[in-house]
């Protein structure tokens, strides 16, 4: 690692001046890891789970982790990840889709650095995108939501209309329809990962439209959950448990645990076996889990949820199995056909039952 930094600075500047630059020095053999996240590391949410996973991985391989939080996507992020690599980081985790182009350049410039990139689709020999199969968990959450909804209307406050979150809403709706075929799901896209004010407003609007269960789809703040508790409607969310913000009305969490994946990848990097690949990880990989179920869910429904959970984990059931009909009533996936991972990761249409049209 030290070699890298010297080589970099040697070409980049007069050696005498460069040696004046104070660099964080550490044991030469400890793996330097860097995690770049788009939002502040809060007590809950996406960045929080990434930090937990990366810290666990650093501990497992005896590495040192620096967390670079709240880094806006764009030229600044590009520079910061370059600096991290120049500073000796050998294993870099990029926590947002928007870091993709900068991350690819980083991977090209530093072939000995291994890069994991969240939610992207580009692969390079030392650059692997990773994403969670949230849809496996949101299907189960949708079943619970339908069982508790009296109005038959469910609302989702969602971050960005990207396939990852379109599929989490779709599977949520499909799970809800498994309990109540008439259920309707409305979506508000807030176009931000971290915007408590807009998220609250969106949730308020959905509740006043009659939605009595909320699905907080990829917010890094507990604003939707907290508002649901105030309004007395059930709410669930992604990534990490927000039960403490809604002790009475918390429906459950579709959580992500990145520790096993990050640890395995860091080990592979140290052993020289890191290979660029697309990692799409779910319940069977122990990355996605469901937890903190509300006690109000009828035990009959809870039993069906447990059966489905086991079937998904065993690979016997996939929510995206035909017949699937889109919002226009057209059959997209015929009976007996299951969407491939690739198709799911590129899904850009809503299933029938989601009432809000996709922004286009």
């Amino acid at each position, binding site marked *: 690692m030290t070699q890298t930094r010297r080589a970099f600075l040697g070409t*980049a500047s007069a050696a005498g001046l460069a040696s004046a630059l*104070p660099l964080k020095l550490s044991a030469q053999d400890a793996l330097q890891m*860097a995690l770049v996240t788009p939002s502040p590391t809060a007590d809950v949410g996406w960045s929080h789970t990434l930090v937990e996973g990366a810290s666990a991985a650093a501990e497992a391989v005896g590495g040192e982790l620096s967390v*670079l939080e*709240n880094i806006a*996507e764009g030229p600044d992020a590009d520079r910061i990840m370059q600096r991290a690599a120049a500073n000796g980081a050998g294993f870099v985790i990029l926590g947002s889709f*928007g870091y993709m182009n900068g991350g690819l350049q980083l991977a090209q410039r530093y072939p000995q650095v291994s890069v994991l990139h969240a939610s992207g689709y580009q692969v390079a020999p030392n650059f692997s995108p990773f994403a969670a199969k949230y849809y496996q968990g949101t299907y189960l959450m949708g079943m619970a939501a339908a069982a508790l909804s009296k109005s038959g209307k469910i609302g989702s406050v969602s971050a960005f209309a990207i*396939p990852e979150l379109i599929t989490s809403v779709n599977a949520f709706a499909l799970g809800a329809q498994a309990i109540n075929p008439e259920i309707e799901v409305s979506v508000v896209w807030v*176009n931000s990962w971290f915007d408590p004010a807009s998220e609250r407003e969106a949730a308020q609007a959905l509740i006043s439209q009659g939605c009595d269960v909320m699905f907080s789809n990829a917010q890094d703040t507990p604003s939707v959950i907290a508002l649901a508790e105030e309004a007395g409607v059930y709410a669930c969310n992604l990534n990490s448990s927000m039960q403490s913000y809604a002790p009475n009305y918390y429906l459950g969490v579709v959580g992500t645990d990145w520790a096993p994946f990050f640890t395995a990848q860091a080990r592979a990097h140290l052993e020289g076996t890191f290979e660029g690949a697309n990692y799409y990880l779910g319940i069977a990989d122990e990355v996605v889990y469901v937890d903190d179920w509300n006690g109000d869910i009828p035990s009959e429904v809870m039993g069906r949820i447990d059966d489905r959970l086991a079937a998904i984990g065993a690979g016997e059931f996939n929510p995206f199995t035909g017949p699937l009909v889109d919002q226009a009533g057209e059959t997209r996936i015929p009976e007996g056909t299951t969407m491939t991972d690739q198709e799911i990761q590129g899904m850009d249409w809503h299933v029938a039952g989601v009432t809000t049209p996709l922004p286009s």
Partner: protein
Amino acid sequence: MQFDLIRRDRASISMALLAPLLALLATGLVSWAIFAAIGTPAGLALWTMAASPFTNWYDFSEVLLKMAPLLLIAQGLAIGFRARVFNIGAEGQLILGAIFASALPVWFPGATSPLLWPAMMVAGMAGGAFWAGIAAFWRTRLNANEILVTLMLSLIAVQVLNWLLLGPWKDPAGFNFPQTAMFQAQALLPGLLPGTRVNIALLFASVASVAAYILMQRGVAGYRLVVTGTAPRAAGYAGFSAARGVWLSLLISGAAAGLAGAAEVAGPLGQLQRSVSQGYGFAAIIVAYLGGLHPLGIVVSSLVMSALYIGGDNAAVFADLPQAAVRVVQGLLLTFYLIAATLVRYRIVRARVAPA
């Protein structure tokens, strides 16, 4: 007990030059205390912030890269500020400039003309001037406050950007992510310093600085502009049009911000995306005032501000300094500078309480 600010008979020139240095010193001291309080290695963090941008070529080139939009926008804003036309919405004008410039490569992805990027720059200036012109129109027609109009137009600009990126301009191969396709090579600004990301936007900013200097320090037009803002009635008697001053101020500052936006999408970004701005439009207001609204001062303040950003990012990498702490340092710098600048011109006097 009450204190009053009394204007000094004569502001000392040496104190005026010393004020920014004192502000820097005070910022350093308070930042050191804050860093120490939050448990980061304060000395290392401060040293990294202050020195790292200048001690190696890579970081210095990044300082120059970031300096270009700040300098360009601040020069434009300062002209308006001296004429008492407060354009607070450079952020929105930058976004409109980026949108107008991006229209060309988005609509003509096969265009390979060497005139593509120059056309984008012109389009960007038009976009920024158009957005600022809306505020000028309402100010001159209805006397609508340009501070509010420009600021709120910035919020609208963000929504226009979101709409384009989520809808008609979305990269068809981009999995629904809100961004355009990457632009073709002819849509990108030529580099200025080989091996770095610095492009000729820095030249645009330099030319704008010289032009601002000639206009404001040497020209009659600049003098008229300042008079319409500072002494509107006198300007009226002299036959200077106040409406013209408003239009000129907003169009110039809007065009400068629009050009900066165009240079961002044709420069380090290479595409139109949500985070096109990084807050340059608002940071440039600080830069303009730190530079004393003087074209030469702004050159220095944009360099300092940009170095502070780069140094702050480095401190985050090397000394585990939270990003928020970097913003605190910038805020401290502006506050101390404003205090120092005020004390150069005014002295504090304990108000005499009239005997009862």
